[in-house]
């Protein structure tokens, strides 16, 4: 059955944990706009126009988004909306239905460590 993708745009800034929770629960193809603006500028101290707590939170969320893409959990894309204005999107990827190693083997490794 074809899954209807869901695009989510939060009315407020997402925390790193909220972003991670979305990644964990998203179906393949679901899209989340986790920032709108100019990420490279908005995350840099002094240059950013965001209040410092918001800037720090955005930097963490953006870092988690990058990490999630490296883990092959999401695709990261950006959509140009205007001059210096982008929508930053995370698109959920299918989660692999197998593990690199069995749970038992991992637990044994941990016990041995």
């Amino acid at each position: 059955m074809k899954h209807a993708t869901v695009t989510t745009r939060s009315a407020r800034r997402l925390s790193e944990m909220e972003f991670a929770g979305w990644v964990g629960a998203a179906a393949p193809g679901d899209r989340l706009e986790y920032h709108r603006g100019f990420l490279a500028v908005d995350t840099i101290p002094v240059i950013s126009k965001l209040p410092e707590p918001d800037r720090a939170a955005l930097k963490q969320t953006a870092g988690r988004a990058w990490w999630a893409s490296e883990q092959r959990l999401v695709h990261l894309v950006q959509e140009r909306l205007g001059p210096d204005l982008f929508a930053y999107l995370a698109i959920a990827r299918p989660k692999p239905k197998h593990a690199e190693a069995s749970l038992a083997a991992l637990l044994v490794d941990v016990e041995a460590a």
Partner: protein
Amino acid sequence: MRPPISRTDLATILDEADTAAARLRRRLGLRRADLDDLRQDLLLDLIQRLPAFDATRGSIGAFAGIVLRNQSCRIAARVIRERRGWNGGLLSLDVPGSDGETLAEQLGENDGLSAWHGQTASGEAAVERRIDLARALGALHPRDRSLCAAATHSPVRVLAERGLGSRAGLYRRIAELRCALAAHGLRVA
């Protein structure tokens, strides 16, 4: 040491227990299959109380009758209390249904006892959770996997004392681990 009970007294006790169990089963409206359980509960209590039997005060039959009656009251009260808790009677999973299948065979996983108590009872979901867990743990750095394992047994204070890092550092790593595990689909139990 108290002398072993005579064969005659033993026969009396067993007879009394049989009668008491049958009476209790009938009064509570329990199934025949419950008779043995009742008999065992009654006998066990009676045997535990046998050292208190004083032959000068009455026969073993009278003693057994009183003990069995009291224990029957306790069992009846327990059964009634359980029935109230379940808002009715209990059904045995071994009861055969109209089409020959037992109740256990007719109940789906999601209708089982665990589901009634709000627990996730889906075998498919359990398998997926296991895969998610293996995949998430496999994606972690071995150092973080060790921290996960250690944190399941010990608080951060103890981990810091063991030299796994400073408390602030450990809290920061655990916060990062929470995010990573959440992104892999794992939630707080």
